[in-house]
């Protein structure tokens, strides 16, 4: 399992692996929004939580269609399915690798973008906290979508349609944490709900994803 994690990380870092793609997209979104909306700090500060979370969702989505598709094309997925590692473990590890190369960099880069969008200082901590707690759910749910659409031509488009609605609760609670945190209100409830979504997705979805993969491999 560790070998699979290391391989996926290594592949992401090599040329054409897509590391930094999501992060660059996230940065661009956050830079473009003030250009479109105008520089008034009050307006930007109000929409910053939503923009940052929508940006994170879309950035995660960018690299999802490659999660299983590449392994399917070169035959690795067949071989992994017949390997001693359970397929559920393969899915969980690949989702973890996806989070390490997209969700984690987004979380670490977010404070910079928060400043760019005039997010109050009191919201910065919660921006990082909400992304740290919520982005693993994006990778888990995304892996499920990728497993459902593996092997389909133009599956990436269908994947977006499948996965984005599933991201709605994560988005709502994630942005709510930042909003409340910036306003100095209590954040426990949305934070716990977001943590619940992440834990639930990480626990249950690898099994659903593995089932979908097995059906798609037949």
């Amino acid at each position, binding site marked *: 399992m560790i070998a699979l994690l290391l*391989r996926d990380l290594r592949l992401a870092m*090599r*040329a054409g692996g897509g590391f930094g793609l999501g992060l660059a997209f996230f940065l661009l979104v956050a830079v473009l929004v003030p250009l479109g909306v105008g520089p008034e700090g009050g307006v930007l500060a109000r929409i910053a939580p939503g923009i940052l979370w929508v940006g994170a969702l879309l950035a995660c989505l960018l690299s999802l269609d490659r999660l299983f598709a590449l392994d399917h094309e070169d035959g690795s997925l*067949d*071989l*992994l*399915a*017949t390997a*001693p590692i359970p397929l559920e473990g393969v899915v969980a590890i690949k989702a973890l690798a996806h989070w390490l190369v997209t969700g984690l960099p987004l979380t670490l880069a977010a404070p910079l973008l928060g400043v760019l969008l005039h997010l109050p200082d009191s919201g910065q901590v919660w921006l990082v906290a909400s992304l740290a707690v919520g982005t693993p759910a994006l990778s888990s749910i995304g892996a499920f979508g990728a497993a459902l659409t593996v092997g389909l031509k133009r599956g990436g488009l269908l994947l977006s349609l499948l996965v984005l609605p599933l991201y709605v609760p994560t988005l709502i609670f994630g942005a709510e944490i930042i909003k409340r945190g910036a306003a100095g209100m209590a954040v426990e409830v949305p934070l716990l709900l977001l943590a619940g979504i992440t834990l639930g997705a990480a626990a249950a979805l690898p099994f659903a994803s593995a*089932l979908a993969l097995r059906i798609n491999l037949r």
Partner: protein
Amino acid sequence: MDFVVSDLAVARGGICVLEGVNFTLRPGAALVLRGPNGVGKTTLLRTLAGLQPPLEGQISAPPEAIAYAAHADGLKGTLSVTENLEFWAAVHGTRGIDHALDRMNLRDLRDRRAANLSAGQKRRLGLARLLVSGRPIWMLDEPTVSLDVASVALFAGVVRDHLGQGGSALMATHIDLGLSEAAVLDLAAFRAQGRVQAAHGFDEAFA
């Protein structure tokens, strides 16, 4: 332990292509699957490897005993030959890839990226994975595609050694590997006569 397949029926795209397949593969023995294109050689091998369920029948060996080598080699172009092989060795919990590199004549290419290998070299690397899998039953689907004469002979030697160590091999191939000890199974004899089965896909899974 003998590998026994009895009364097996397999389907491709919801259509039963082979039925009543029976054979026994003893340790040290090889069986060559023959038959025209589309008869179900690949479908049979995928079923035996555990990638799709059989319609009916029994397979005596668990998928954990089977190393499957298909048309695609499962290589990553941006990883080197060594990295590719070490990954599969780690996945199968075996150590040491030197033996496999030597046997498939890949030592000189060990630091080259897989994307820069020729088709035949990629194939040799794909087949070297069998050696690091440590599994006794090899399922080979057209293993000699893109191999030159020397490489075919090299691979035939590898298979012969594997059989000599008590392993067994089931292969679909149109090329004679020169394994005089291999038995031949003509799949045309098991062709299913137009039996249509429900597709093993999402339609059925969520029906």
